[in-house]
């Protein structure tokens, strides 16, 4: 397959290698025979930012749970870095709607927690230097030794970004990470996320139901529809990088948002 591709495409070296591959994925909940996902195919390439958008109940949370190894698929193929995903893995980074920092541990202790859980206390101590670097990266360098109760909502989510990055994951799975923040903080955090993804050359997959957020962050957007949950269209976002908040006011941005809203709206009418 890859051999054939490279023969057909002479400039295949310019296309980044694929990191996460999903083919013919389906998920049926046995209890109520609900078809949550059917025939989902997607490929995340290295350094790419892909979002999935859709109304609630379209299966996007189910997709993310399967991708993170928290839930098995009913059928289909799910591979990260060529290895099948059969459970949670250290090379999968996750971020949730809530920062979920443990209040009895300092910020830096929270950040090295994934290392401590998987490799023990001495490995966690060794990872502290890197944790501090990550804190500096997200602008929390001075907050390493405070408790999460003293962090604002935005700061707590930045700390949880560090916790996600500490294991050097091959892919970042983001489950509406800023939806609990106010809109101004959210805009700011989205720009921060873009910068962090760029500096760490991360491959990221975002689940959201904010159109503007998906468009401003993504290289591609997968539009999903429910009953049964499936990807109905892939929208490539041609806006240049780095993206800025001013782009939201451009006609091109407006056209893209209108197009996706149209796709989602048809569903609502059905």
């Amino acid at each position, binding site marked *: 397959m890859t051999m054939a591709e490279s023969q057909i495409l002479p400039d295949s070296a310019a296309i980044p290698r694929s990191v996460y591959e999903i083919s013919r994925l389906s998920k049926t909940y046995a209890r109520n025979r609900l078809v949550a996902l059917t025939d989902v195919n997607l490929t995340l390439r290295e350094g790419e930012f892909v979002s999935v958008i859709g109304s609630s109940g379209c299966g996007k949370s189910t997709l993310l749970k399967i991708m993170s190894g928290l839930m098995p698929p009913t059928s289909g193929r799910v591979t990260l870095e060529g290895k099948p995903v059969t459970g949670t893995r250290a090379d999968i980074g996750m971020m949730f709607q809530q920062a979920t920092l443990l209040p009895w541990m300092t910020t830096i202790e929270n950040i090295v927690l*994934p290392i401590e859980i998987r490799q023990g206390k001495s490995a966690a101590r060794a990872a502290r230097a890197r944790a501090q670097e990550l804190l500096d990266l997200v602008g929390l360098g001075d907050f390493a030794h405070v408790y999460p109760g003293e962090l604002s909502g935005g700061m707590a989510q930045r700390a949880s970004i560090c916790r996600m990055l500490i294991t050097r994951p091959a892919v970042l799975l983001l489950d509406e990470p800023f939806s609990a923040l106010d809109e101004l903080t959210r805009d700011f955090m989205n720009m921060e996320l873009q910068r962090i993804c760029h500096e760490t050359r991360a491959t990221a997959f975002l689940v959201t139901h904010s159109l503007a957020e998906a468009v401003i962050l993504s290289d591609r957007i997968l539009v999903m529809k429910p009953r049964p949950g499936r990807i109905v269209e892939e929208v490539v976002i041609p806006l240049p990088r780095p993206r800025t908040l001013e782009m939201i006011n451009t006609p091109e941005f407006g056209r893209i948002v209108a197009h996706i809203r149209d796709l989602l709206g048809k569903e609502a009418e059905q």
Partner: protein
Amino acid sequence: MTDTVSDDLPDTVWIEKTSWIDAMPRWLAMSLLFIAVVTLWDLVTRWGWVSPIILPSPAETLADLIFVGRNLITGDYMLGALWTTTKTVFFGFLIAASIGFLLGVLVGETKFGERAVMPYLVAIDTMPKVAFAPLFIAWLGFDIASKVALAAFIATFPIVVATAAGLYAASENERMLFKSMGATRMQTLLRLKLPTGLPYMFTGLKIAAVGVMAGAITGEFLGGGKGFGALIRQSASQMDTPRVFALILYLSLLGLLLYFTVVWAQRKFVFWNKDQRPGALG
């Protein structure tokens, strides 16, 4: 020409009325209430509305308070009795905390515990536990052991329930986080569920602190022995009501000591709980 408001007009002034009774500081309010109750008590006994055998006058009670206090300070027989009761309460609390914690983990962490053990615990908990006292005396004799057993028996249940509730307290997101980090069941229990449940467990310990006192004294009422409960019963049977009052007051100090030890431990161990530390985090 401009719509600037003239400066001659008066400021808007809010007048908040607080009644003088709510405006009193705590020390004054508490003192006033104390004085009022003691005065009423004094009048009731002075005018002979109530027989002195039923309700002694404040002066008599104070005299007995001083007598008992002197007896305790000089290390006379009452100190020995208080020490016996203190030991009963201490060991009863320790046993209740240990067994309650272990049963709580069993019920809160395992499906078997939840399905099989919990119904029986609820059934036993609804029984009047004091009724078991004669059994404990029959099994363990009239010595301190039967009182410790009754005290522990009464205090165990709130700790079981609180521990189990505490283990359920971790949020769905936190559980998902630990799962995604590949945490084992033991790691999730030790690093997430137990710390999250600590505030609940301390609530259980506070309820248990009250129960263990009741259990110890009931045990001493029914089983005799050398404790404070036996002293109280003895004084009551001699119609020495002022002595009973004085003994109860000193006994309540033991209860307060235990209760506030638990509160102190909670402040120390659950330092992150903002509700427990008002003002500390702004």
